[in-house]
């Protein structure tokens, strides 16, 4: 009997985390794009990109340090809401968001930087509010880059292993996501079970890449080429 729970848990985690990552990454990218202080820009960029470069277990270590029972946020939740974040399902979301964030943030920022800055200035001299400029000019024209960043981030969240293992553990039916399940089944010698999960992940990954290419190509065709 195949255990379907890793599939459901993974889909749920990836969906919730991409929702958070997408908007958070977009806002942070826009904020840094508009930031005038170069030193601050470099420092913040370093911090936001770090999860991409560090080994996932190191990121997990930091997360545990913050969200663990004795960590500043972890202990706050225990004291005020009597809720333990570490080794719960939300911990899988936290790990996925932190690990996928750099991909979203960097893609979106790169996409904003590609926009002709005259377009933003034209919007300003035509009386558009900054909010309108963000959505109608920056977001709309950076959409291919933003979407591919979002899709990459989704895939990264779905495949998250190291940081999840550190912060959320590997509790069957609760925090055991697909990559965890593959690991557990292989460790237990159930290669057949593991193979089923692997096929599923490869399938999803392929769809993701397909959508990404399709969206990017279509948008670019619509505006740039004849």
């Amino acid at each position, binding site marked *: 009997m195949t255990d379907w729970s890793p599939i459901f848990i993974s889909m749920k985690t990836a969906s919730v985390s991409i929702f958070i990552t997408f908007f958070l990454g977009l806002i942070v990218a826009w904020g840094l794009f508009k930031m005038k202080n170069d030193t601050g820009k470099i420092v913040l960029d370093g911090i936001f990109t770090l999860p991409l470069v560090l080994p996932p277990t190191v990121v997990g270590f930091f997360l545990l340090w913050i969200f663990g029972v004795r960590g500043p946020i972890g202990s706050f939740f225990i004291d005020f809401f009597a809720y333990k974040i570490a080794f719960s399902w939300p911990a899988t979301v936290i790990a996925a968001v932190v690990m996928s964030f750099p991909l979203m943030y960097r893609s979106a920022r790169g996409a904003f930087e590609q926009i*002709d800055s*005259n*377009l933003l*200035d*034209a*919007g*300003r*001299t*035509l*009386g*558009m*509010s900054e909010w309108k400029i963000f959505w*109608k*000019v920056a977001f*709309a*024209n950076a*959409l291919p880059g933003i979407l591919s960043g979002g899709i990459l981030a989704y895939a990264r969240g779905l495949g998250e292993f190291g940081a999840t293992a550190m912060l959320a553990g590997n509790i069957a039916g609760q925090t055991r996501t697909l990559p965890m399940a593959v690991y557990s089944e292989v460790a237990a010698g159930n290669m057949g079970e593991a193979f089923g999960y692997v096929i599923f992940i490869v399938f999803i990954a392929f769809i993701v890449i397909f959508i990404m290419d399709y969206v990017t190509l279509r948008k670019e065709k*619509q*505006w*740039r*080429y*004849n």
Partner: protein
Amino acid sequence: MSNKMLKVNIQKELKEFDLDVDFELKSKRLGILGPSGCGKSMTLKSIAGIVNPDSGFISLNDTVYFDSSNKTNLKPQKRNVGYLFQNYALFPNMSVEENIAIGLGKDCDKNHLSEIIKRFHLNGLEKRYPRQLSGGQQQRVALARIMAYGPDVILLDEPFSAMDTFLKEQLRLELVNSLEDFDGFSIMVTHNRDEAFQFCDELIVLDKGKIIAKGETYQIFENPGKVQVARLTGCKNISRIEIIDDYHVRSLDWGLELEVSKKISPNISHIGIRAHDFSSANVDDLNAFDTLGSTKIEMPFEWEITLANGLWWKYDKQIHQHEFDVPDYLKVDPKNIILLEE
């Protein structure tokens, strides 16, 4: 237009030089002429509020746009200034109609929109995207978008710099016509003397961030005053001089002694002669010199003759004429010799 006035007095530190521009504008059209990278665009962008000067003051009529003394800095959104970008900056994700509707902003209604589309001859193109338009159509959409916004000032940033000659001449005419109906100020930045001459009642010549000439366009072209201004207004022949007496100079670059019509003041260091201002002469005429060793190049409507001493002469011709003998002697009328300061 009676009591309208645009005041600009700004300073900004740039990489290569410091921008320091100060002028008041009362007439309708101002041109800012200068070589690339002289701070022209920076001046326009400061007026629009896209970049902030380090210090200074900018106001239109009674509205203060920028005043560093009390930290006033009106957002570009509040300045009511139209900016025609070099590449037009049409929103590529929006159709012609949608682009113009952005200019109309909140009071966008169908009738007004279609009226503007008609006025700029864009009927039938409403649903097209900018990339599907020709350069001329793009310029019309950009102008329509600005006019829809109803600005007090229109800023034109090298509007024709990236175009081929044929399109350029056509668009210049169109732009002149569109601006004819416009009742506010317009300022055009350019490095092209023809554009400056064609568009502007008044001219400012900018070099390395400083104003080196300011005045009526005709005046500046007739009497540039400074070497750099003469060069920018298209004076081909400029030479260092040695003053002989009040009305005579020796050109150091051409090896000629010439008589001029105005009294030479001691700070005159150069003279300029426009390439069209020579004519054929006899050997004993005033300001005559020989043309030994000249070379000629045929252009469609003029001969370009280079003399051995480096002088340029342009002589108008008809398209079907292909024969031309350079006269043995040329002369220049004393009143066509421009006295210049360094």
